[in-house]
């Protein structure tokens, strides 16, 4: 996953693209941070700790975006993922009060080995992909993701996927509203009676 980022450092000498590439010390620090927080998400016993690890992970990804020359994507990552989506996670986790120990204690070894196998497989697939795809670093050098260019690409070449994804989101939103509506119907009537 991170390998094309390193190789883009070399490529930035060829193309006159500013800011692209992560300095090595920062890359090492943030790679360790990202991997450890990603492990923390799945390994921590407390759900709220997992959510906090997830937030840290998303913020770390935003730092990478910023170093790769796209402060816009970094800001959007923080605003949307860390600021809006995971807050809802936190809401649910805060209200649910789940105790994980009850169903994790007995077969913890089994779960952890399962996690490890899945992680290893995913890692191998990612490494394989990044090595086998010769184009991935070049894409970075050709396309400087400024705000204007992202908007142009989004509304010209990628207009159809963009519209489809927004349609999916709309459907999900309507579905969520309908789900809450059915449950709230009785409640609304009682409110009207009392008031």
């Amino acid at each position: 996953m991170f390998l094309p980022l390193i190789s883009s450092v070399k490529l930035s000498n060829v193309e006159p693209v500013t800011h692209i590439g992560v300095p090595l010390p920062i890359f090492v620090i943030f790679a360790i941070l990202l991997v450890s927080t990603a492990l923390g998400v799945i390994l921590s016993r407390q759900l709220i700790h997992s959510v906090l690890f997830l937030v840290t992970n998303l913020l770390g990804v935003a730092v990478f975006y910023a170093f790769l020359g796209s402060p816009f994507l970094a800001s959007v990552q923080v605003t949307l993922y860390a600021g809006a989506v995971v807050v809802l996670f936190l809401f649910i986790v805060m209200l649910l009060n789940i105790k994980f120990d009850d169903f994790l204690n007995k077969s913890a070894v089994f779960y952890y080995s399962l996690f490890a196998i899945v992680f290893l497989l995913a890692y191998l697939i990612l490494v394989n992909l990044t090595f086998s795809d010769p184009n991935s670093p070049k894409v970075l050098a050709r396309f400087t993701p400024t705000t204007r260019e992202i908007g142009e690409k989004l509304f010209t070449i990628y207009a159809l996927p963009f519209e489809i994804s927004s349609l999916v989101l709309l459907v999900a939103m309507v579905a969520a509203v309908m789900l809450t509506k059915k449950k709230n119907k009785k409640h609304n009537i009682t409110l009207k009676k009392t008031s």
Partner: protein
Amino acid sequence: MQLAFTFILAAVVLNITLSIASFCTWFERKGSALIQNRVGANRAGSFFYTDNLLLKPVLFVLRILGILGVINTLFCDSVKGITKEDFLPTGVSQFMHSLGPFIAVFPIFLAFSVLPLAPDFTLLGQVFRPQLVPVETGVLFVLAMGSIAVYGVALSGWTGNNKYSLLGALRASAQMISYELALGISFVTMIVTYDTMNLYRMVEAQQGGYWGIFLQPINFVVLFIAGMAETKRGPFDLPESESEIVAGYFTEYSGMKFLIFWLGEFAEIGLFSFLLALMFFGGWNLPFIELPKLTWWSSLIGHGVLITKVLFFCMLQIVIRWSLPRFRYDHLMNLGWKYLLPLSLINLLVTAFVIVF
């Protein structure tokens, strides 16, 4: 040279953040006393007395400061907060309990780093820009940092291990997320209007009297209301409404941790006032007067003008906070979702049509 300038600027930005926060604290105490026909803090410094002629003027100044309440807010409060017992609720880890106020404050301080403080100036043949992080997407960065601050509130309410603090945290998070939509869309409207996300260029675009308040008066109203709701103050202080839920999300905080929440709140007021002054009131531009560019003294004057506007908006928010009663929660949600959000959306559409055609 540029590196040294950056280090100096970092210190200056932090200093401005803390100064504005402490000014707001002072004005909150003395201004609210003025509004409520009280005297306010005036005791600190009153016990100094000496016959020494040399020390007399010093003590006179100290007494005046004490009567104005400056010593009380700047010195006594913080000393009291630091030396107070740090109370920890049962069954709560110290780390998580301390993390809440930290996350509530730290992003706000970070957001100050993208604000331009004065026009460019030349010194020793080099051009300096008094903006710590001249990032292209300054407005979005501020918005992102504001959305991170929700975690501080939610966490501190949760680690309170207390019904009231959890309720306060839920109220605060719901309120901040709902008003963030209207806030974000009104930011987008300003971005479309000035055709840039850079706060410095936004101010430059307002030269010659084309201030944002004249271009987007409706958007100013939307942004002002949404921003005040975002700072969780004024008539929007449902999360800490002391008549229903003891103190909301910081019920279980005492000592310095509690003061840190205050600091964050006032820093948020300062940040929001900065945004208003930069986007709607011309930043460092004076009406009818064009200052010469790239000189150190005009930069200094510009900085003064900007800070004056910022302090005006800080004071305005505090006056509103002390003069309006609190909303009811369903009214608050109605205002956010049914009035402000559609208004800002329509405003954005109209602006886009005007810009394109």
